[in-house]
């Protein structure tokens, strides 16, 4: 099924794009991450211009996280106060991200920066997650219950001034910490077209020390609003959001997300995390190879 993308200016096989959205949607439903980290590289690999890919992938994450946010709201596990602070930071971050995007594009290094970010971030997170989940799986096999992790925030967080009470998260910390984390994730959202869940969740657990039952809901809440802001930023600055591409991706991802969340109940959580870690590491490796090997295209054209 050939579909012409009016902003990307080329025709693609619509079914391939829907399938791609479905894969990332299933991942997002199963693991609670947006799946943007897979969409953008796969779209670029398929031949969509990198700018259009990064700009359009964020809207897919919006769609995939909507139903998640509703589900977690019903279970009362979203800390709106924490989420609000992070969204404020996130919107600031998308603004900074858009400026960075334009700057890097003008000096011709946007692709390299996106690639390096992918390799570094996905490599680190994937490695940590693989180790942690592997140990958890071994611990359960050994019969001993995994030791309960102590919940505490990072010492730097404790040293920040101006403390607020975040009741649902069970925290008394400076709002600057979640604000900064939100800003950082916002920058990444605009640059890479990812939701940032794979950074946000560990950051909330290990840096802020939030109570685990509100982490995923609050992270989805932040992702929902920041990906919306990122889509707006891109349509205002790069004008590279392709609505046809976005709708195709959404078709796949929103159904995939529902299927994924049904599947998730059938696996042990630590095994799920291990599978996700392997996927994340595979994407990072693929990107690293792309940087190190002679690319098929040495030359690239940018409008003047």
């Amino acid at each position, binding site marked *: 099924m050939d579909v012409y993308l009016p902003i990307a200016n080329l025709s693609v096989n619509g079914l391939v794009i829907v399938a791609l959205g479905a894969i990332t949607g299933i991942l997002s439903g199963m693991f609670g991450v947006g799946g943007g980290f897979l969409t953008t590289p796969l779209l670029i690999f398929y031949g969509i211009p990198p700018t259009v890919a990064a700009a359009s992938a964020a809207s*897919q994450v919006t*769609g995939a996280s*909507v*139903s998640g946010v509703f589900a977690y709201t019903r279970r009362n596990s979203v800390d709106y106060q924490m989420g609000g602070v992070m969204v404020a930071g996130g919107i600031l971050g998308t603004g900074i991200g858009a400026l960075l995007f334009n700057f890097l594009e003008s000096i011709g290094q946007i692709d390299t920066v996106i690639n390096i970010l992918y390799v570094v971030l996905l490599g680190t997170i994937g490695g940590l997650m693989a180790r942690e989940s592997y140990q958890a799986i071994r611990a359960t096999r050994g019969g001993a219950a995994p030791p309960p992790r102590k919940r505490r925030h990072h010492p730097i967080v404790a040293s920040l001034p101006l403390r607020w009470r975040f009741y649902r998260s069970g925290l008394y910390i400076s709002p600057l910490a979640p604000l900064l984390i939100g800003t950082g994730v916002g920058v990444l959202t605009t640059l890479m077209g990812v939701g940032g869940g794979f950074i946000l969740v560990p950051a909330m657990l290990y840096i802020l020390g939030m109570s685990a039952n509100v982490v995923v809901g609050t992270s989805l809440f932040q992702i929902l609003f920041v990906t919306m802001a990122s889509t707006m930023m891109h349509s205002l600055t790069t004008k590279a959001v392709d609505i046809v591409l976005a709708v195709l991706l959404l078709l796949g991802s929103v159904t995939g997300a529902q299927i994924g969340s049904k599947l998730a109940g059938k696996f042990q959580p630590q095994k799920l995390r291990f599978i996700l870690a392997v996927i994340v590491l595979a994407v990072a490796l693929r990107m690293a190879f792309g940087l190190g090997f002679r*690319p098929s295209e040495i*030359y*690239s054209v*940018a*409008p003047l």
Partner: protein
Amino acid sequence: MRALFALLALVLLGAARDPILVPEVSQHEIQVRQGFTGTDLLLFGAILDPSGTRAGRDYDIVVVLKGPTEPIRLREKQKIAGIWINADSTAFRSAPSFFAVASSRPIGQIVDERTAAIYELGLNWLQLSPIGAIDPEEQTRFSSGLVDLRQRQGLYSENSKGVVVNEQVLYQARISLPSSVQTGTYTAETFAITKGRVVASATAKVEVRKIGFERFVAVFAQHESLLYGLLVVAVSVGMGWLAGRLFAMV
């Protein structure tokens, strides 16, 4: 047809010594709409000699289809500290977004280099107008890089057997445009060449434009970017919500 009769009349009057070229294009307007996967353009026509109804001599025909030119920056990747990144770059003021040459024989056998350069007959003779002073060697490297890149994208092509001449009167050439062609005015130039000299040339225009929904989206995204962004956000939230609702019912 009427043009043909008029030309025949002209021929009978014996106005000129050089042959007359009557070119035609299969489509004067290419519509880029949903499902557009590229198209084939047929460039055809007739060469007539003033002294007779058919040319009588051996003519070579070269057809050049050229898309709108645009200023571009061409970047070149180099391996720096173990990774491939954009290093060198150069700017061209007039890089054609599409360029296809079809001829009845290899260009090198039809004309000399000077003539080929004057009429831009071939990818080696593209007039890219580099901006700023760069040395000729570097310029050649960059322009061949651009040609190679766009050849593999299907945007530049050279076909030395692309023109078929029948009975020394009718000629036709088929040029295919990929779905990634730019919109704008394309010019199709036809040259009749004999003994290394261009004896007749004619130009036809082809308009490539987005229409309907595709045009609407492109214009909307460009001029009403705030509304467009809001629309995309609304669609994504709506689709996510709808899917959640539908699956909740299952």
